[in-house]
């Protein structure tokens, strides 16, 4: 199963949206491709629905208990920060086991 949520503002309130998505993904062991591209950009600084860096941190924390076995993860052009990437990396290693 593939899931692409790109070039979008998925969350009505950002973090809540990412939490909802993470919970959904946690039960999707058949998901092979996940594309989350450009869903937290805010070129005009007036979009209340963007997913902030902290939103992504929450997202990765929520995914820690997931049983995902992804083959392809596309996570480009987002507002992930150092904390986010440091949470994502152990997730990747865990998914590989």
């Amino acid at each position: 199963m593939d899931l692409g949520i790109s070039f979008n503002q998925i969350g009505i309130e950002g973090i809540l949206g990412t939490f909802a998505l993470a919970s959904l993904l946690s039960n999707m062991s058949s998901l092979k491709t996940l594309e989350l591209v450009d869903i937290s950009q805010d070129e005009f600084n007036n979009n209340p629905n963007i997913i902030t860096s902290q939103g992504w941190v929450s997202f990765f924390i929520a995914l820690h208990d997931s049983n995902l076995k992804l083959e392809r993860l596309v996570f480009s052009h987002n507002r992930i920060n150092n904390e986010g990437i440091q949470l994502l990396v152990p997730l990747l290693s865990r998914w590989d086991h």
Partner: protein
Amino acid sequence: MGSLKYLELSENELVTSAGWETISDYLQSPNFALKELHLGRNNINDDIVVALTSALSHNKTLEKLDLYDCTDEDDNELITERGWEAVSTLVCNKTSIMDTYNSNHTLHGLGDLDIDDDDDNGINQMNLPDDLKSYLDLNKNKDKAEVARQKILQTHFSDNDTTNMQELLGMELEIMPATISWIGRPTHDVWSGMNMSGLSTMYNLMRRLPDFFDTGAAKKKSATKRKSV
């Protein structure tokens, strides 16, 4: 072996060096199975490239590492000669013949796959050293033993380097035939230029060890033939 084969983290400009350093830990995880890792258009500098290449030294799965267009706010390239040199050493460590043999023979792409193939995924815009481009090209060959052979011949037995030739000449005679066969082994692209180093090494070997190739016997034989005619 892990399941994740493709990871794209391009254009996440808020991540700094400290964040990218953690990626190198992932590259060394025991079940790492990635074939493509896209890190283009990020704040990736020489230090990160050195860490990434060090982590990939024993990797045999990663074919593409996209480092395209890693620039700062003023559009200056963050990966300089030092960074590319580290990649070059990864794919062809020249320290010794064994180091060359044990180099990474899998990685063959550093460009952005979204860029048209005519430009080799943008690699021509990346100011890569020529030798690195040549090693990446060699790594495209699926026959990794042949890739290792080509790198060893090009690096350690070029016309200008006679040090290793001396080592070859001092080799025990019993293993010399196998060595000569290895040097001159024909490949599919024997005349394409990439295998010329094998023929050059063979030529240099023949010049230095004429007796081994029995050229005198061949001359005598032809002389006898001429006399009898």
